[in-house]
């Protein structure tokens, strides 16, 4: 049963990600990415990461993708050529990566890594969100604060970059 769910999610994720790259219209690409985000959230549920599944839908599908669609429609793009001139080089690099991946998987012989003993950090929490909160606010408190700083910098940077009169002043002066 678990495998049925995994193969369904994996198939849709792989197909949607190919569509994101292959589709000509940016809006269709963004919608394919939306399908992929929802199925990644489903995959998280099968992996017992319910909190991350909710966050995936709220942040990725709810915020990030809406921002993308907003910009695509704001710019009112015409459809244009899909691929640019460096595609032979890209083909060589991509083929090398694929071969390397195949060789690595064959060489490792599909052996599963050893489960490390005694590193479990789930302490006294019953739910998934509780376990994440326990670790996030104790062990990873400093990275958590740094993440808030990153968000602040990104917010200020986005406002400064997209502000109209700054660009105009620079081009006039």
């Amino acid at each position, binding site marked *: 049963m678990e495998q049925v769910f995994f193969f369904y999610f994996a198939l849709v994720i792989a197909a949607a990600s190919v569509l994101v790259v292959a589709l000509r219209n940016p809006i269709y690409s963004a919608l394919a990415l939306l399908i992929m985000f929802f199925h990644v959230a489903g995959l998280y549920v099968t992996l017992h990461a319910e909190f991350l599944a909710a966050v995936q839908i709220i942040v990725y599908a709810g915020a990030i993708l809406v*921002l993308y669609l907003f910009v695509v429609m704001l710019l009112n793009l015409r459809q244009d050529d899909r691929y640019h001139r460096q595609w032979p080089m890209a083909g060589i690099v991509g083929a090398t990566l694929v071969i390397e991946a195949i060789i690595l998987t064959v060489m490792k012989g599909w052996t599963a890594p050893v489960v490390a003993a005694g590193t479990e950090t789930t302490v006294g929490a019953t739910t998934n969100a509780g376990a994440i909160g326990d670790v996030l606010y104790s062990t990873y408190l400093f990275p958590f604060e740094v993440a808030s700083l990153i968000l602040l910098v990104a917010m200020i940077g986005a406002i400064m970059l997209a502000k109209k009169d700054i660009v105009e002043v620079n081009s006039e002066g």
Partner: protein
Amino acid sequence: MTVPLSYYLVLSGIVFLTGFVGVLLRRNIIIILLSVELMLNATNINFVAFSQYFHDVAGQVFVFFALTVAAAEVAVGLAIIIALYRAKSAINIDEFQLLKW
């Protein structure tokens, strides 16, 4: 019957490669940013799969941080795209060659 860890790694590898090829091949900057999102999601799948496999919740915490960075990247990247569009009225990366040798 549980799913082996290697299946998740293969899925994540496929998605990552797709995103990588998209970054290299496409000309539209928005599609390139979408491909970067694909790669970030591939790493997130890896993190969650390993987190489940090792019974260690730290992997999910890292997905949380990756999500934060992805949100920041999208905000700044789209602001840059809007600024570029104002300057050149195009978002094909072939149009922006100022830093090319």
